C-alpha cells in the first residue's frame, strides 16, 4: 500500500469539502449539496474499509489499525445517516447557506477522522481543532436565532479553554518524555509529577469534548441552541472521535499510570452518569433531556475505560456501547430534526402517534433503547457488556450504581413514548417526512433492534478493535 492510501479517507473529505467553496449555483441547491456530502462520506467510509492490511501501520502521524478503521466507519456511518436524515430540515431551520453548511460539516468530520487515526498528540490536537472550529460555526448556523448564536459562543469559549488544557497537557507530556507519540514504550521514562500534570490536563481536555460531568456545562446549551441537524451530527461524530481518542490514550503510558491503573477513573464515570441522569430528570425540553442523557451515557461508556487497568477486555464493551449509542442518538435527534425547529418541549411530541406513526414508532424504539428496555435490545446488550466487565474487574459498587442509574433513567426516558402515544395532541397537523429521512431513520431503528437481537458480529468487531489498541 502506498503512502497516499493511509490518508485516503481524510484526503477524500478535505479535498471534497473544497468543492463546496467553488460557490457555483448548482451546489447551493439543497438536494445537490446534501447528496454530494453523502457521497463524499460514503466514499470516505469505503476507503476506510478498504484500508485492510495484515499488520497495523503507523506512519505520518496516523495509525491504521482495526480499531481506528472501526471507529472511522462508525463516525462515517453516523455522519452519513445524519446528513441524509436532516437534509430536508435545513430549510425549516432557516439555513440558506447550503454550501457553507456542508463545507463545515465535511470539515468537521474530517477533523474527527484525524482524531481517530492520530498516532501522536500533535496530530490529535490538529484533529480536535479542525473538528471543533467547524462545529463552532455550525452551532451558530441559524443566524436569526439568538439561542443558536449563544450556543456557538458558549461552545467556542469553553472549547478554547479545553483546547488550551489539552495543549498544555501535551506540552507537559513532551517535557516529560521527549516525544509526542501516543505509546506506552515511554512509560518507563517518566513517572514524576510532570506526567501526572500532563495526564490530568489531557484528560480534562478530552472529557470536555466528550461532555463528561463535571466538564459538561456546555452540553445542554449547545445541544439545545444549535440547529437540530447539527446536534444530530455532533452527538454522534464528536462523541465517537473523543471516546476513540480517550481509548487511545488509555493504551499509552497514561493507561499504566497510577491514576488509571488504580481505577480511580470510576469516580468520573459514576459522577457523570449520576449527574447526567439527575439533571435529565428535571428537563422539560427533549433536546436538553437528550443532552443530559448523553452526559450520563458517556458515564456508562467510561465504565469500560475506568476498569481497563484490570485487563478484562472492558475496552471492547465501551466500543460496543459506543456503536449502539450512536444508532440511538442519531435516530432520536434525527426525529427531532425532521419535526422542525419549533419542537423542543416534551409536550410538543404529544399525539405524534397520530401525526406520523412512523416517526412515533422510531422515536419510541430509540428512547426504549436508551433506557435499555426491550424490544430495542441494543441498549440492553450494551449494558450487559459494560456491567459484566465491571463485575469481572470486581468493581461491584460501580456496577450497582450504574444499574440503579439505568433504572432512574427510565423515569425520564419513558416520558417521551408516553407523550407520543398516550397523550392527545392539541390539533397539530401531520408531520411530513422526506423519503431520505424515512430511509435513514428506518436504518437507525432497524440497527437499534438488530444490534441487540444478533450482536455477535459487532461483538467480534469490537473485540478485534480492542485487541488492536492493546488493552484487551
Amino acid at each position, binding site marked *: 500500500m502506498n503512502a497516499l492510501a493511509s490518508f485516503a479517507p481524510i484526503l477524500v473529505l478535505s479535498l471534497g469539502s473544497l468543492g463546496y467553496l467553488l460557490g457555483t449555483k448548482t451546489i447551493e441547491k439543497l438536494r445537490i449539496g446534501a447528496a454530494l456530502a453523502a457521497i463524499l462520506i460514503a466514499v470516505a467510509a469505503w476507503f476506510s474499509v478498504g484500508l485492510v492490511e495484515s499488520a497495523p501501520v503507523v506512519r505520518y502521524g496516523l495509525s491504521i489499525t482495526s480499531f481506528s478503521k472501526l471507529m472511522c466507519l462508525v463516525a462515517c456511518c453516523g455522519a452519513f445517516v445524519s446528513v441524509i436524515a436532516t437534509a430536508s430540515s435545513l430549510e425549516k431551520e432557516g439555513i440558506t447557506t447550503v454550501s457553507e453548511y456542508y463545507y463545515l460539516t465535511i470539515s468537521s468530520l474530517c477533523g474527527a477522522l484525524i482524531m481517530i487515526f492520530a498516532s501522536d498528540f500533535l496530530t490529535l490536537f490538529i484533529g480536535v481543532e479542525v473538528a471543533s472550529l467547524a462545529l463552532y460555526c455550525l452551532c451558530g448556523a441559524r443566524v436569526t436565532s439568538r439561542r443558536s448564536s449563544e450556543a456557538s459562543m458558549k461552545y467556542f469559549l469553553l472549547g478554547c479553554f479545553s483546547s488550551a488544557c489539552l495543549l498544555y497537557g501535551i506540552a507537559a507530556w513532551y517535557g516529560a518524555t521527549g516525544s509526542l507519540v501516543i505509546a506506552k514504550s515511554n512509560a518507563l521514562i517518566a513517572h514524576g509529577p510532570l506526567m501526572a500534570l500532563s495526564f490530568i490536563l489531557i484528560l480534562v481536555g478530552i472529557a470536555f469534548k466528550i461532555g463528561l460531568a463535571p466538564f459538561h456545562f456546555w452540553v445542554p446549551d449547545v445541544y439545545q441552541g444549535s440547529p437540530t441537524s447539527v446536534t444530530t451530527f455532533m452527538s454522534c461524530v464528536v462523541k465517537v472521535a473523543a471516546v476513540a481518542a480517550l481509548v487511545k490514550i488509555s493504551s499509552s503510558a497514561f493507561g499504566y499510570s497510577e491514576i488509571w491503573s488504580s481505577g480511580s477513573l470510576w469516580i468520573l464515570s459514576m459522577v457523570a452518569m449520576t449527574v447526567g441522569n439527575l439533571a435529565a430528570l428535571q428537563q422539560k425540553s427533549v433536546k436538553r433531556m437528550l443532552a443530559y442523557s448523553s452526559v450520563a451515557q458517556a458515564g456508562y461508556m467510561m465504565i469500560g475505560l475506568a476498569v481497563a487497568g484490570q485487563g478484562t477486555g472492558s475496552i471492547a464493551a465501551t466500543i460496543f456501547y459506543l456503536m449502539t449509542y450512536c444508532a440511538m442518538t442519531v435516530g432520536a435527534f434525527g426525529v427531532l430534526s425532521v419535526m422542525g425547529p419549533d419542537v423542543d418541549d416534551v409536550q410538543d411530541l404529544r399525539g405524534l402517534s397520530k401525526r406520523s*406513526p412512523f416517526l412515533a414508532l422510531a422515536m419510541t424504539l430509540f428512547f426504549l433503547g436508551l433506557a435499555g*428496555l*426491550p*424490544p430495542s*435490545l441494543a441498549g*440492553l*446488550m450494551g*449494558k*450487559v*457488556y459494560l*456491567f*459484566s466487565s465491571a*463485575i*469481572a474487574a470486581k468493581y*461491584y459498587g460501580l*456496577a*450497582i450504581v450504574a*444499574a*440503579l442509574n*439505568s*433504572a432512574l433513567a*427510565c*423515569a425520564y426516558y*419513558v416520558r417521551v413514548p*408516553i407523550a407520543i*402515544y*398516550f*397523550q392527545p395532541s392539541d390539533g397539530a397537523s401531520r408531520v411530513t417526512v422526506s423519503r431520505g429521512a424515512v430511509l435513514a431513520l428506518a436504518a437507525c431503528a432497524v440497527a437499534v433492534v438488530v444490534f441487540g437481537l444478533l*450482536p*455477535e458480529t459487532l*461483538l*467480534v468487531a469490537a*473485540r478485534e478493535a480492542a485487541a488492536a489498541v492493546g488493552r484487551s
Partner: protein
Amino acid sequence: MTTAWPPLSALIAIPACAGILCLLPWFSRERDTGARMCKLWAIFASGLTLVVLLAMATAATSQPGSYFNIEEARMWIPSWGVAFHLKLDGLSFPFAILTTIISLLVIAWSGRPATAGAGWYASVLLGEASVLGAFLATDLVLFYVFYELMLLPVLAAMALWGGARRLQASLKFLLYTMVGSVLMFVAILYIGYRGMNLLGHHGFAFDISSLATLPRLSFPEQVALGICFLVAFGVKIPAFPLHGWLADTYREAPHGTAAFTAALLGKVGIYAIIRFVWPLFPDLMQSAGPILAAIGSIGIVYGALLALTQRDIRSLLAYSSLSHLGFCVLGLASASELALTGSVFQAVSHGFVTAGLFLVFGAIMDREGATDFDGLGGLAKKIPVTAFFLMVLSIAAVALPLTSSFVGEFLIIMGSWRSFPGWTVIAMGGVVLGAVYTLTAYLRTMFGPAKDAVPLRRADLRGGDALVLATLVAVVVALGVFPGRALSVIESAVSLQVEDARSDGRASPSREFLRQGAHARSVGCDEGRYQHCHAVVNRVGS
C-alpha cells in the same frame, strides 16, 4: 428429552407474529374497521397456541415412564455464552397452560375497552408471547429479556385505555419493577461471570441447566445475590412489603388488562423462585425460610384486613390477590415438596380465579357505572347468570373443597406445618378473614336493595362471555375435583429443583451426576441424563 415438531419457540412465535399483525391497522387511518377481524384472528392465534401446547404435552407424556421434558436449545450470542434455551417440563407446563388459556379468554371476552381498536388484541397477544417466553426460558439473560418485555404490552394497554390516573399508575408500576429488576440484572451478570471462571470456557454461563452443575455459591454470595433476585420477584408477585404498585395498577387498568396482569405477571415471580432461586441459592433459601414464611403469612393477614376495609371493588380484588399470593410465598419458604407443589398449584388456581373475578366484576361495573360497593346491590335477580358465576368464583376464592384453591392452600398448609407451625396458624386465620370479605362482597353486590334503574334481565352476560366464564369455572372445578394427575406432574419437576437444597450440604445425587456430565457440557441435556435424574429423585423421595 423429547424433541418435538413444532419446536417450543413456536409457542412464542405464534402469538408474537399474530400480535404484530394486529398492530398493522394502527398504522392505517381507519383503525376501527380492522378491530373485528383482528378479534377473530387473535382468537385463532391464541387458540392455535393452546392447541400446539397441548399437542406437545400429549406427545411428550404419551410414552409411559418418560420424564416430561421438552427442550429447545441453540446458541444466541456465542461470545457471551448466552443461549436461546427453552424448556417445557412439569414446572413450566402448568404456567404455560394458564397463560394460553387466560390470553384466549381475555381476547374472547367482549369487554374490550371502549376506545380500543385492534391494538387491544395486539397488546394481549404480545403479552402472551412474552409471558410464555419468561415461563419457558432457562437462560438467565433470555429470561431477563422476556421478563422486561412482558411489562410493555401491559403498560401500553394500561396507559392507553385505563382510568383517569392511568399515566401515574403505569409510571409507578414501571418504576417499581425496574428498580426491583436492575439489581437482579447485576446479580445475573455476576453469576454468569462466576460460571465462566468455573466452567473455563470463553463465554459467560447464564444457563440454569449448566449453572446447577457448579459448586454452590458461598453463603455471603448467596445472600447478596439471592436478595436481589428475591426483591425483583417479590415486587412482581407482589409479596408483602413490596406491593405499593398493586392497588393503583388494578384500579386504573382496563378490566381485561387487570385480569391478564393479576393472573399472569405475578406468577412469573413465583415460577422463577422455584426455577432459579431455589437451585442457585439453596443455603439462603433454607436459612431465610422463616423470613419468607413470615412475609407470606403477614401478607395473607394484612391483605385480608385491607380487603375488609375497601369500598372500591378493584382495590378489594387487588388486596385479596395480595392475600392469596401470600399463600404461594408461604409455600415457597420451605423445601417441602408438598408445600412447593401446593404453591405452584395455588398460583395457577389463583390465576384462573382472579381473572374470572376481574372479568365478572368488570362486567358488573360497566353495567352499573359504579366502581365501589356502595353503588351496587340487589343484582341477583336482575342478572342471574352473572350472579351464578360470581357465586362459584367467590366460593373458589374462599377455597372451599372441590375448588382448585382448596387443593393449593391445603397442600401449602400441610407442607408448611412441619417447618413453620406458628406462621401456618396465622395463615389459617387469613383464610377465615378471606371468607368474610369475599362473601361480604358477594352479599353487597347481589343482595340487598337495588340501587340502579337498569331494567330486569337486560345486559346480563351474553353467550360468548358466559362461555368464557364457564370455561374458567370448569377449569377451577376440574382442578379441584381431579388434582391428582396435575399434582404428580408438578411434584416430579419441583422436587428436581429443590433436591439439592434438601440434601443439606451433602453433594446431592443429581448435582453430582450432572457435574460428571458437565465436561461434555451442552446447552441442552440428553434424554439419558434426565431419565437418570428422575430415577434418582424417585429413589430419594421414597
